[in-house]
């Protein structure tokens, strides 16, 4: 098969997923934040939080639109670009793919209802309850689609007979050994990133326009969520590392440039490889890799040399892994710093430097999501379904993939730009304070109408 076509197929899929992941993360993370804010608002009878939920929802819908269209694109591209993969694996993974669409369907229905029923129910909790199916639907679709990815890493639930899958057990394939750690890490980091995004926006607005009660509340609320899910996400990352050490040692070994099997293996930070493939300039933490992988400082960690040359992942994944982990700890540190500063100054002044750090956490969190996915996907190379189907066997034979790559690149640039412009326009000429006044005015109007009766 033409390797050029395979390369362009990979690039096209990578491009679509890279773009989709941004909006998918927002799609999973932000509904949870909306639910939290609306609940806080009803509970504390504080219109600030209700307004927060409203404004976030409005912005959220726009990103959902882009998420839906890129999600549709990747759903179709799976069959269009990787027909051999779908023909073979479809027999085993159709169930989670199918249920993912169900979950998404469910979410779509209730998002529509949530959006258009703000003042329709007498009991405010009724409207809040509508966030449940949205949050659950988003979480479930993340769960199901992650099980598919888990299957590609840890295939199970079938027997191989003459190049075909037989004796298929769909549920076993779905609940493969990679599923728990992957799902935990995907969900926790999506919630972390959703909160970091909204915290970053609040911090940036305070930096630009000065403090206001609305943005201070948003910042406090979101930074506490960042802290909680930051810690949770780090724990989930640890679970993932232990999973890799046990089930996919070549992926972990490639990430850590761990060539020879040894006990008490060192953890490497950064550095580079010289011409003899020796590691230069890295920070070595003695025995930490063994501890990371097995919770035992002297455990034996499998090295890359145990695997045949053509089954080793590319060594560049080391940087992806290091950067992802580094960003994760940086974000947690910023959240801790913020918590400390609020605690010490009793929630008053925030230093400019701290606010800027919070602003930077937003793009960094998204970057970490991308890097994490790159690591997970490139670290699986050269396999499409690890141990069963190589990438070059799965791609389409059609020579038209290359021009399509550029067409889709253009499409995503246009969509991304428009999305940014619309979001900007939506909020720039409509500051929270002005909207709050209108909101309060409407509330007192209603109260005025009710009182005489």
């Amino acid at each position, binding site marked *: 098969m033409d390797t050029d076509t395979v390369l362009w197929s990979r690039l096209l899929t990578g491009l679509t997923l890279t773009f989709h992941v941004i909006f998918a993360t927002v799609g999973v993370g932000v509904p949870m934040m909306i639910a939290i804010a609306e609940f806080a608002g009803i509970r504390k009878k504080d219109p600030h939080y209700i307004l927060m939920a409203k404004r976030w929802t409005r912005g959220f819908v726009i990103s959902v639109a882009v998420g839906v269209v890129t999600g*549709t694109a990747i759903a*179709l591209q799976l069959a269009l670009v990787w027909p051999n993969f779908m*023909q*073979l694996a479809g027999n085993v993974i159709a169930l989670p793919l199918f249920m993912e669409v*169900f979950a998404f369907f469910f979410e779509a229905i209730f998002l529509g209802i949530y*959006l258009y029923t703000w003042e329709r129910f007498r009991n405010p909790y009724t409207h809040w309850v509508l966030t449940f199916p949205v949050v659950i639907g988003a979480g479930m679709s993340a769960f199901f689609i992650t099980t598919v990815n888990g299957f590609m890493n840890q295939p199970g639930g079938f027997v191989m007979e003459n190049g075909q*899958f037989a004796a298929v057990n769909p549920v076993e394939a779905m609940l493969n050994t990679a599923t728990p750690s992957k799902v935990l890490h995907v969900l926790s980091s999506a919630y972390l990133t959703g909160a970091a995004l909204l915290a970053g926006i609040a911090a940036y607005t305070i930096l630009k326009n000065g403090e206001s009660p609305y943005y201070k509340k948003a910042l406090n609320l979101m930074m506490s969520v960042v802290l909680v899910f930051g810690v949770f996400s780090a724990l989930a990352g640890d679970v993932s590392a232990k999973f890799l050490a046990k089930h996919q040692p070549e992926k972990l070994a490639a990430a850590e440039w761990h060539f020879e099997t040894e006990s008490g293996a060192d953890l490497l930070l950064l550095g580079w490889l010289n011409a003899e493939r020796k590691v230069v300039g890295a920070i070595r933490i003695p025995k930490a890799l063994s501890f990371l992988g097995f919770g035992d400082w002297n455990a034996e960690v499998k090295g890359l040399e145990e695997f045949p040359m053509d089954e080793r992942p590319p060594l560049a994944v080391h940087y992806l892994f290091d950067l992802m982990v580094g960003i994760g700890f940086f974000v947690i540190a910023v959240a801790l710093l913020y918590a400390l500063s609020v605690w010490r100054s009793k929630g008053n002044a925030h230093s400019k430097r701290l606010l800027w750090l919070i602003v930077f956490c937003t793009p960094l969190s998204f970057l970490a999501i991308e890097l994490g996915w790159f690591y997970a996907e490139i670290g699986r190379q050269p396999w499409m379904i690890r141990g069963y189907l190589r990438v070059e066997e799965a791609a389409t034979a059609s020579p038209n993939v290359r021009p*399509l790559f550029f067409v889709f690149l253009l499409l995503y640039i246009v969509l991304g730009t*428009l999305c940014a412009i619309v979001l900007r326009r939506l909020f720039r000429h409509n500051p929270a304070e002005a909207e709050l006044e209108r909101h309060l005015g409407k509330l007192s109007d209603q109260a005025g109408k009710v009182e005489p009766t």
Partner: protein
Amino acid sequence: MISYELLGIAVLWLFLYGYLIVASVDFGAGFFAYYARLTKRDHMINRLISRYLSPVWEITNVFFVFFFVGIVGFFPKTAYYYGSALLIPGSIAVILLAIRGSFYAFENYGSKENIVYLFLYGATGLLIPASLSVALTLSEGGFIAEFGTLVRLQYMTLFTSPLSWSIVALAIVSVLFISSAFLCFYASRADDQPALNLMRTYALFWSTPTIIAAFTAFIYLSQHNERHFQNMMGLWWLLALSVGFFMLGIWLLYDGRRYGLAFISIMLQFFCAFFAYGIGHYPYILDPYITIQEGATHESMGFALVIAFIGGLCLLVPSLILVFKLFLFDADYVKGKK
């Protein structure tokens, strides 16, 4: 006991029918919005359109993905043949859907008055059904050639075939007919007389090309795929029912009192024709490469999918009823009071 693959294709066909109806309303609305703007009558129908479509556009899109994922799940061979052959037309459809999907969010919150966007909205409404109908044409056979491991779409055969063009024409005019009939009904619920009159004119106008295109496609089908045509002739009573419902629908529209009933009978018209077409296609999904029996997935997977279907429907049907109650049958909402 009905076999799971037959059950699968029946439910999927039902979903495709569901998509046909909801998507037609959506696609047609785009065209009418643009056309009304050109003829300076947009103020009459735009509010009507956005009022109904804004809460449901996402649902419409999911119907499509649902069918698509379902057919690949039940019949993995379809991924191989259709996937390989449809790389270009499929990608074009994806791009058009992307333009359209983003339109809703961007237009609703951003650039309400932008004529370029409105043009894209209108144009994609006609181009998407055209590009999607290619898959239907392919299923008739004769447009795909297999060279070893390479599956290729025969573009020359496709573009010179009167069958493919008649199916495209049918797709487009049906979209406009279904959409205008629905918007008639919606306008009558909203007591919006000017919009109702306008949409009624459109609906009556598009009924004629729809029935002509249907007969034309039928005739070309008889020349292209004799077996399919004969099977459909065997289902003459379904086709007759379809024509009957069509005439009933037109009469009700013309009479101008019971628009809900008119829309239902148009839905039934398409239901009968769509199922006559689908049953006549049996046992092939892609003539002659994939049959329903041979192309089906493993039994355990088919069984799991059917269970998921039932579980999912238990969740979806009440939710959809809720949506309809809130946005379609709530008279105050439709009239714009909520």
